[in-house]
């Protein structure tokens, strides 16, 4: 027999992922079975139409009444149910200024999971940001009937940048802050409560040859869920930078990764690992406390990575991109769990974590459902989020695994789990050891830390 090498894919835990592609199709991928299940495309929503290319997506990942927002190239934002794909309502994001929607495409989209107190129940808030920097936050009354028109409760619109193009935006875990960055736009952080810019980054100094690299951010994310002060950003000149709002305006750590622009950055739950994907299909995980590469995800991936998603429960990440594969990877072993071919250029992938393997779908919230229930549910979720019980567990597990590997870092990581500010300290330690900081700034930084600790 001819010798054929097959990639042994161990399969993935039961999960459900939703992918979006350039033809505007939404595909649902499910893996059934305990372990080693092969994920398959189970549903396809929408008709192929290139003008409806999905440019951004966001999901509220909750047990009752989950929602999925999808921004299309035409400037329309659709809100769907991620369970059966029914469209709940549609909002147009097209400006009256006369710009064609193709020129001013939506780049960032976020559905708020936590409900603001001033909003009435059964409504959802939506943040969208376009290439030109027109950001709007809307609260929308969810219509009772599926085809009913959505009534916009309140909306605020402001401009994030005067010039340049926004290419990445992200909302932090507490959903009070948002970051924006792009071509010619330094990373800036906005307070969403009062729509005020609270921080802007400063471009790094000229290099030894006196050459200044133009600002061009291609991907950014908050490093940890409950800390809006640490930002990881990837640039077009294949640099990954860590910004600390409380420390300084220039990057705290910055390092190069391969030779093509960083196209996707995603954070891990543990608060220090990030996953970076670049334009030629390289995917790697990096420890942002030290800026050291933990390892690369190898698996014959050859197309630019557009999106990375971390599963909230399992140690699994999904990546997708121009090679039209969705790949699931094990976070710890960095092994390819499985790959699904989806025929089109993919733009986004999200996980639906409330997927039961038994085939019992979470109930689709019928419109007459008590809004209070949702509200209470979200409250519970909020509490859970504020109490980092789960995270600590995860950290401990990590430690256990790390004990075998590296005993040196062990103490440090313990510190992290014990103290909340330990992470800060650790980072500062590394900063001191790295030559990037000048002594002057170091003193500034320590002052900041002292303040933090005091508060």
């Amino acid at each position, binding site marked *: 027999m001819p010798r054929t090498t097959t990639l042994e894919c161990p399969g993935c835990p039961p999960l459900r992922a939703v992918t979006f592609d350039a033809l505007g199709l939404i595909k649902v991928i499910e893996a059934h079975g305990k372990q080693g299940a092969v994920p398959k495309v189970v549903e396809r929503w929408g008709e192929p139409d290139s003008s409806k290319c999905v440019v951004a997506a966001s999901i509220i990942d909750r047990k009752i009444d989950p929602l999925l927002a999808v921004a299309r190239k035409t400037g329309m934002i659709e809100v769907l149910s991620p369970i059966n794909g029914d469209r709940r309502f549609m909002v147009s994001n097209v400006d009256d200024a006369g710009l064609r929607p193709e020129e001013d495409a939506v780049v960032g989209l976020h559905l708020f999971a936590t409900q603001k107190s001033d909003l009435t129940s059964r409504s959802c808030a939506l943040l969208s940001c376009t290439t030109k920097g027109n950001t709007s936050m809307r609260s929308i009354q969810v219509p009772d009937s599926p085809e009913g028109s959505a009534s916009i409760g309140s909306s605020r619109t402001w401009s994030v940048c005067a010039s340049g193009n926004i290419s990445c935006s992200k909302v932090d875990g507490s959903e009070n802050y948002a970051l924006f960055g792009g071509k010619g736009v330094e990373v800036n952080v906005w307070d969403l409560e009062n729509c005020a810019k609270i921080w802007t980054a400063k471009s790094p100094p000229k290099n030894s040859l006196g050459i200044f690299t133009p600002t061009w951010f291609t991907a950014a994310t908050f490093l940890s869920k409950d800390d809006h002060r640490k930002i990881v950003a990837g640039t077009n000149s294949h640099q990954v930078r860590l910004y600390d709002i409380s420390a300084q305006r220039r990057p705290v750590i910055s390092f190069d990764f391969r030779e093509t*622009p960083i196209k996707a950055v995603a954070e891990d739950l543990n608060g220090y690992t990030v996953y970076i994907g670049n334009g030629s*299909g390289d995917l790697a995980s990096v420890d942002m406390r030290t800026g050291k590469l933990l390892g690369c995800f190898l698996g014959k991936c050859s*197309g*630019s990575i557009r999106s990375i998603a971390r599963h909230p429960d399992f140690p699994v990440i999904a990546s997708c991109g*121009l090679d*039209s594969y969705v790949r699931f990877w094990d976070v710890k072993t960095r092994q390819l769990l499985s790959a699904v071919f989806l025929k089109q*250029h993919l733009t986004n992938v999200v996980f639906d974590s409330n997927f039961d393997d038994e085939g019992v779908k979470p109930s689709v919230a019928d419109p007459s459902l008590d809004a209070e229930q949702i509200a209470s549910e979200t409250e519970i979720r909020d509490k859970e989020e504020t109490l980092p019980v789960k995270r600590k567990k995860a950290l401990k597990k990590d430690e256990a695994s790390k004990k075998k590997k590296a005993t040196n870092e062990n103490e440090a990581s313990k510190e992290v789990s014990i103290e909340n500010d330990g992470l800060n300290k650790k980072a500062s330690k590394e900063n001191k050891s790295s030559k990037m900081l000048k002594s002057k700034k170091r003193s500034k930084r320590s002052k900041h830390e002292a303040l933090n600790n005091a508060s």
Partner: protein
Amino acid sequence: MGEKRKKNRGEAADRFERENENGEYENEQRKKQKKQIENKGEILPSMIKNKEKRSEVHAKLKHQKKLDKRKKIKARDAAEKRALELGEEPPPKSVPRTIENTREFDETVCKPDDEELFAGNDADEFSGILKREHIPKVLITTCRFNSTRGPAFISELLSVIPNAHYYKRGTYDLKKIVEYANKKDFTSIIVVHTNRREPDALLIIGLPDGPTAHFKLSKLLLRKDIKNHGNPTSHKPELVLNNFTTRLGHRIGRLIQTLFPQDPNFRGRRVVTFHNQRDFIFFRHHRYIFESKESKQNDAESKKAKDAKAEKASQEKVLARLQECGPRFTLKLISLQNGTFDTKGGEYEWVHKPEMDTSRRRFFL
């Protein structure tokens, strides 16, 4: 003496006996070995440490194999002949196993009933040209330094591709050239890269926002180096694309298709072939002619006319004869980039990476 002789005889007899014994012993040993061999399964010649013995065993084995093979072929031929004589169906011809027909399973191979594929085709960058909304117009340029075979190759490319225009590269950036070509309504750019006076790479850029394919170019043979070559006419050529099966191959095929006009002059009997085999794309340029001849003598002459055999008329025989004209070269895809040429900030749809080369039976086009 007598005693001695006796002794000698005795010794000889003894020796003989001993030898016999030895022989028996050896035989026994051999038997044992054979048994061992049978027990172990097989003993490879390479496991024998003595070189002489090893080569002997190996030669024997090889000879045996040869005989077996000959016998097998003989038996097969005989069976076929008998079947023919009896008027039965001859046994099915066995197909040799190649690395192409034992290719690794690839889920990206396009299927003809895939509606998503056609929807994707309608939406891609090439559909405008392929639906004849625009006429292809090609700009050919070179790398900055260019001599000997480079210009010769370009002049031949100009004769192959209709509506192609050569522009001197000068010292312009490729990005600037892309801008310029966009302004002048070109639909693609071909850049011939030369290294050591020998063309070694080809860059095909689709415009205005089409993909950029980077090929390695090898085995270039110019027209004058081809024996009995013909000279092409100025008719629009027909295009043959072979074996572009996967999604990536499909895309590359469509990219190549946009270089040529979609309405060939069949009167010109000119054909340009891009034949993909094991991820190598072979370029050939021919003139063909259909000749009807009555005599059988031409059969031997026209070796390439196998295709025409099927169209055999009762008396007349239509032969397709080919004459090669124009350059001959081989392309291999290195990368396919989304968008126009941009090495620093570009996103790749496909890049060749060394970790892909773990199997000889895996092909991407």
